[in-house]
């Protein structure tokens, strides 16, 4: 979040209101949950870290909307470093995997049931994302982002299918003993 806000200031100094609007625009329906407060909190942190400076604009004093933020040289360096970075969010599958193993080992719950519940949840999310994507006009940036979400969820669902097959087999073998 911080990096994204910094990068948006790279073009030109701007005030918080504008930043919020631009973020909302590129996130489309996914950005609906984001409120302006979050932006200001972020900007305050960045200022404290010396990555942005706040230039009070002329006009009415003490109104946060009127503060114009600009990158400091340190901030510029940070943006450059961020762009060069190839880090990628790691899919957090280990936790669910361990959940299944632990549930099965301690006979706390049926792993197949857990998988089914998880699948229902992911399908709901997929449905939401897919519908939102369908509502986007063709070529919108938010549509592209939603497509990414949909594909990730699809991949997760397929992994859940694999989990279900594997755990059903283990179940069968246990029953068969």
């Amino acid at each position: 979040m911080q990096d994204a806000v910094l990068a948006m200031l790279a073009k030109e100094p701007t005030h918080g209101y504008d930043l919020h609007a631009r973020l909302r625009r590129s996130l489309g329906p996914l950005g609906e949950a984001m409120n302006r407060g979050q932006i200001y909190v972020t900007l305050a942190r960045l200022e404290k870290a010396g990555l942005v400076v706040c230039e009070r604009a002329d006009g009415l004093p003490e109104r946060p909307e009127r503060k114009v933020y600009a990158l400091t040289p340190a901030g510029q360096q940070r943006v450059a470093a961020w762009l060069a970075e190839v880090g990628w969010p790691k899919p957090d599958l280990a936790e669910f995997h361990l959940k299944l193993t632990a549930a099965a080992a301690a006979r706390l719950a049926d792993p197949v049931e857990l998988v089914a519940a998880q699948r229902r949840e992911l399908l709901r999310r997929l449905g939401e994302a897919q519908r939102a994507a369908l509502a986007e006009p063709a070529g919108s940036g938010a549509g592209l982002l939603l497509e990414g979400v949909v594909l990730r969820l699809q991949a997760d669902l397929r992994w859940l299918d694999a989990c279900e097959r594997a755990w059903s087999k283990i179940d069968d073998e246990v029953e068969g003993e």
Partner: protein
Amino acid sequence: MNVSSAVVRAFGLAKTHGQGQSRVHAVDEVDLEVPQGQTLAVMGPSGCGKSTLLHLLGGLERPTGGEVWVAGRRIDTLSERALARLRRQSVGFIFQAFHLVEELSAADNVELPALLAGRSRRQARRRASLLLERVGLADRARHLPSQLSGGQRQRIAIARALANEPLVVLADEPTGNLDTSATLDVLRIFEDLRAAGQTLVVVTHDERVAATADRLIAMRDGMFVDDTRLAGSHPRGLGGLIGLEG
């Protein structure tokens, strides 16, 4: 769920192939009610019997057990002739392989059901051009199926399925042969149908198609193993999908 509002109902529906040892239960005594306006997705691995289920619901195959009711009428006992009439009035089919008549133009294909139902040629033509407009292919009316892409062909097939304003549309792997963008075109049309209150049963193993339905049934070995309502739940807002919430 009000029974009278169910467009499609099945009780103890079963279909077996073969005999003795080699007997296969394609559909194994399932019960189903699809209320008016619901979009239902049936998911399952290949060979789980979901296509057979769809054929049974549309009267293309006869069950070996149980009952099928469509539009308040029991159909598993109907004659071929009566079944044909039922299909032309109440059921629209969409297939994975499109199944368009290759020798006929897009518009001619869409006209077929209306003509079969005895509409005048002018009525059929008007309805066809309306539907082609609706699926975004008005400019392709004169094309032969072989001159169209897979996605366009499937959209023609959808238009054809809608020709007689069927009570229920039955779709068998409608996106099975399509790429992502064509799949999205089909999903968009399905969303429009859902919004318009069209009852729709889709058999699929495409998660996108399944996830956008109101209700999802998972099928294994001829039986229903899960039945979930998907739509209407909006617990966290879309922002939750990318970790932007609060």
